[in-house]
């Protein structure tokens, strides 16, 4: 599904990713863990196509095609979804309008007819139940006045609607209490399938008790310095990252 080879990326003069390689097969959920400033969010943003990051070397293959050659909207329509760490508030843009426009942009890219308002409402309501979204979610402006937890739920709602092939969750657990984390994990797990992959970026092991990963990678100093199964996450939770970072520099 996703193959990253020797990826280097920078913002301005600052190099953040320094030769990152990673392979996520179809159907698997991989977790990316690592200390602050290790490049986790940069990786998520580069995969989604943020232009502030300049890729200086390496390549990213998504379903066999060169992902980095595509503008953000084409990546999204091809099935790449980034759940933002800090979902953006957009005054004046209605949430239902964004959801419907996003869905129909994707359908159009796949040669499907746009979904009409009636069908859309039926569909979105089933998805809203999954993440316990309040009814006024649709009538409000995108993320405007949403609490931190509501914003994250709105991201997952978008993901459930768009049914991506590759979902990148950037610290979706940050700022959530246990109940909210359960609701969101339930939504995420409902999407797990043999033809869908996920990259779960997180600081904390506790999310991975709820979204159980097939593999866990440690990102430090802009590279993957260790990979393992879910036991690695537990070990990191107990021991921290220092013992690994030393190894990374050696």
């Amino acid at each position, binding site marked *: 599904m996703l193959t990253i080879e020797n990826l280097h990326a920078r913002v301005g003069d600052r190099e953040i990713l320094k030769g990152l390689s990673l392979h996520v097969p179809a159907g698997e959920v991989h977790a990316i863990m690592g200390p602050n400033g290790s490049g986790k969010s940069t990786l998520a943003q580069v995969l989604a196509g*943020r232009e502030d990051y300049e890729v200086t070397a390496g390549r990213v293959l998504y379903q066999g095609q060169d992902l980095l050659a595509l503008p*953000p*909207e084409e990546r999204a329509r091809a099935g790449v979804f980034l759940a933002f760490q800090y979902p953006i508030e957009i005054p*004046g843009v209605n949430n239902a309008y964004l959801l419907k426009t996003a869905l129909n942009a994707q359908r159009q890219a796949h040669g499907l007819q746009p979904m009409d308002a009636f069908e859309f409402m039926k569909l979105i309501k089933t998805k809203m139940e999954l993440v316990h979204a309040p009814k006024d979610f649709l009538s409000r402006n995108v993320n405007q006045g949403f609490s931190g937890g509501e914003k994250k739920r709105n991201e997952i709602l978008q993901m459930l609607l768009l049914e991506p092939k590759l979902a990148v969750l950037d610290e979706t657990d940050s700022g959530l209490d246990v109940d909210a984390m359960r609701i969101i994990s339930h939504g995420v797990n409902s999407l797990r399938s043999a033809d869908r992959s996920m990259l779960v970026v997180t600081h904390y092991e506790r999310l991975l008790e709820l979204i159980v990963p097939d593999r866990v990678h440690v990102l430090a100093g802009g590279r993957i310095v260790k990979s393992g199964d879910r036991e690695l996450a537990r070990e990191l939770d107990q021991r921290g990252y220092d013992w690994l970072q030393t190894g990374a520099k050696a």
Partner: protein
Amino acid sequence: MTATLPSLADRPLPGAGATWPRRRTALAELAAAGWPQRRRERWRYTDLEPLAQAGFNVAPAAPGDAELQTAAAMLESLTGSAPRLVFVDGHFSRQLSGALPSGLEALDLDAEWGKFDSGWAGSIPTTEHPLAALNTAFNQRGLWVRAHAGAEPLQPVHVVHIGSHRPQLAAQPRVLLEIGEGARLTLIEHIVDAGTGAGWLNVVTQVRQGARSQLDLYRLQQHGEQQAHTSLLAAELAADAELRVGYIDLGGRLVRNDIDIALRERGARVELFGLFVAGAGQHLDNHTTIVHAAPETHSDEAFRGIIGDHGRGVFNGKVVVRPKAQRIDARQSNDNLLLGSHAEIDTKPELEIYADDVKCSHGTTVGELDEDHLFYLRARGLNADDARQILTTAFAASVLERVRDEPLRTRLLDLVAARLGALKEKVA
């Protein structure tokens, strides 16, 4: 000075002989005040010299059957079956206008000239508003709308200004709105042109609101792209009166709106908002003045400008708080979106505060679309052009949300989205 006002004084005055003394007075005041010049601060960014030089006919004859027929054909789509008052080339046409709801009456200004002269005509300072004097001198068949005390018509009343195909006209419509105590009225003004020629509309609207009255006054300006437009809205509010004014400027080549609101008595409130969209070659200027002349008066002003490449916007918002006007609340904002490297806005808040127990705030922003917003929408599969269009429309929509008349609000959103779409095509 006379060089810039060629032959105005020599023009035959319109109307009955009884109206001439006031018209002559207005012309004399205009001559003394002088034509607006850019060296004067009020006119620094907007050059009206071309209007003086262009040889407009400032006192056009009444429209003929052909003009009225063209206008009639445009009315259905503008107002539907709602009550309407129609002007063609500045002349009120009773033939095209419908019956008014009970509690409202529309008088001919010409027939009431004596009262107009003594009560209204000279009440606008010519030094600040020389073009209002031009209007006083040359207006014909103006309109005096009265809402009787306590009147509450259910439907909005539409006031339609239509410019005909006739070339080089400077139409001078005059509208007086007298809102009786406790009356409530919504008025929707439409400004359109039948042709695409270079005309000039110089409209003056005067409002007097009695105690506890409420007026919602919305104005949709969709002039043809060669049209010049100057306007003055001068309103005075008595105790606890509420005025809501919304100006939507989408058309015209050279547009200057002056809005003067005086909160004369305790408890008077005004909400003043506007949206202007200036495409290539358009110059749109809003000059507003709100005077807090009494205690416990409130003003809430918000203008937004969307300036396309090679478009130009001007906003000047003045708020005056008189010495005895304590415990007032005045808010003002002007936010502008520039959509091209040759887009230009000149914006200036002016606060003159002579009382000490007041709450005043103002804020101005000028910027481009937010890159974070754009990326978020693109990351959801919207292409860059659509994302820009959505964000630009949203910027406009947040002002239009202040329109309380729902059918009008929906219609304005559609019209503005269409205008912004055309703006994008022109830029591309």
